[in-house]
């Protein structure tokens, strides 16, 4: 939300909280159209501690409390796209982040937010959180993938060493979450990288981030880019194109089309949720197998594409072993065996 617009001095401030997303940032920036900001500050101190909170007592398969990396990667990708357009250093872009002493600040620091923003070209400063921190954090949470810009060389090729490093982190987490099946962990990691492959080939790179909650057995990975996408000129077109890609009916010369198909199969096997965004259109595959579609009719273009995958694996840390958990353990195990044998999920 644009909370300061000092036209006289050219100072502007956009506050970002837990609910902020890419569309909101684009909307805020549209107010600056025609203005000549001397300083534009992205103020992250309005993010609150519950951003990192996932400490429910009940084990509810297929139910996700928070999806913080999805919002965060969308916001950072929107800032990145804007920074690429404005003539720096004519305009000074800054970011104000909550300091490490706060829980939310520690989380954002662990996610390498300041490093990514600095790499984009923002001057980063720190302050205390804007709001009192309430509630408890999940101390078992692991920052599965710190915010990472997948940067491509001029010929479009990626940095393979960076990809190897990111992949190792994901694989380690899947190994923790699937301790009895190392091969499956490796297979899951490869599928996640189908999305990265698509971002490299069609989206000019992107920003990836991920969290893992061992206590609840949840894995969340988000990948966002601000160019490319599936195509379409209007939000309705974008939705139609996204549905075509989902159905596997988009035209391709030879091969390809593995990303969405593989991610969908994996999501279904793990009773997870898959969110796909193409511009302003979003598709959501839910744990019950249903599909929902939505379109943001903001009147402003939301370029690029995004994918978020949320998987429900088994808790590795002590949590009350309820009847629901015991039942789910056997159902998930059967589903994963079937997945590995190449069959359809129950």
């Amino acid at each position: 939300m644009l909370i300061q617009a000092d036209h006289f001095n050219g100072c502007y401030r956009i506050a970002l909280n837990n609910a902020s997303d890419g569309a909101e940032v684009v909307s805020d920036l549209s107010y600056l159209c025609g203005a000549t900001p001397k300083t534009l500050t992205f103020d992250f101190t309005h993010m609150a501690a519950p951003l990192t909170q996932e400490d429910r007592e009940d084990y509810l398969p297929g139910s996700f409390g928070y999806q913080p990396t999805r919002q965060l990667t969308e916001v950072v990708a929107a800032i990145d796209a804007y920074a690429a357009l404005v003539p720096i250093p004519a305009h000074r872009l800054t970011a104000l982040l909550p300091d490490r002493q706060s829980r939310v600040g520690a989380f954002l620091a662990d996610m390498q937010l300041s490093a990514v923003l600095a790499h984009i070209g923002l001057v980063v400063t720190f302050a205390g959180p804007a709001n009192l921190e309430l509630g408890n954090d999940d101390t078992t949470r692991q920052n599965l993938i710190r915010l990472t810009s997948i940067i491509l060389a001029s010929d479009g090729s990626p940095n393979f060493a960076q990809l190897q490093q990111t992949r190792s982190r994901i694989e380690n987490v899947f190994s923790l979450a699937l301790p009895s099946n190392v091969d499956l962990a490796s297979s899951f990691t490869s599928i996640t990288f189908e999305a990265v492959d698509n971002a490299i080939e069609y989206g000019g790179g992107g920003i990836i981030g991920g969290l893992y909650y061992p206590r609840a057995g949840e894995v969340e990975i988000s990948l966002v880019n601000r160019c490319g996408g599936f195509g379409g000129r209007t939000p309705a077109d974008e939705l139609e194109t996204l549905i075509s890609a989902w159905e596997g009916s988009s035209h391709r010369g030879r091969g390809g089309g593995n990303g969405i198909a593989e991610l969908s199969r994996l999501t279904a096997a793990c009773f997870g949720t898959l969110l796909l965004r193409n511009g302003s259109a979003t598709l959501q595959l839910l744990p019950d197998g249903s599909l929902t579609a939505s379109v943001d009719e903001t009147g402003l273009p939301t370029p690029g594409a995004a994918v978020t995958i949320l998987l429900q694996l088994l808790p590795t840390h002590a949590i009350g072993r309820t009847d629901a958990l015991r039942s789910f353990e056997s159902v998930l195990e059967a589903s994963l065996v079937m997945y590995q044998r190449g069959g359809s999920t129950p």
Partner: protein
Amino acid sequence: MNMAHRYPVLERARRITHTPDLDILEVRKHLGLPLANDMRQWLADQPPLRGLCLDFSGVRAVTLSVAEEVGPLLMQTVAQDPALEQRYPTFHLRSPEPAYTFARAFANHSWAAVGTIEGSVDSMAATTPMATLDDCGAVVILGQLTKQMEQILRFAELRAHSNAALTSEDLIELDFLAEVSPAARSKRLTELYVRRLLGFEENPRNPKERLFTATWRLPAR
């Protein structure tokens, strides 16, 4: 493994990506495609009627998109390119994850190829175990194989044990081919050659007859 004609996949992939510690094959456009082109070139340079090993030793994992490029799409090119006639690649896969991914890639494309796998293949989807070789483990067919194709390959393997080649005439011993025309039997063998699951040479005593051998029984040197 004891094969004279060996393409070291990981070494070539590391060279393409300029990444000396690379052990995962990913990114179709910047690794899958150049690697497939390099493999095609290498295959064309190899002698005919020999077992040619695409050696994936050291490769820890491969994405489906890359497996597609260097698996079924490469093998479909092998089937169509006259320069690659009589070239018989086999996929040597040491760890289960790449084997699983390649099997899926071939099955998705309704294609098949010969693979050798070290380790258990019992519950692996889209793989059909065919034999066990001393120097490179289990021989499997990766991908889609009909029951009838499988029977012909097992028959070829059986004949190889008695050092005999397989001809279309021999196929009448199989129930489902006993009553069909010679052309139809010959067509079955050609289909398996196209996928490089069987190799053949002309019978020196009867040039009209082709002598087939299971690909994994072709000489390695």
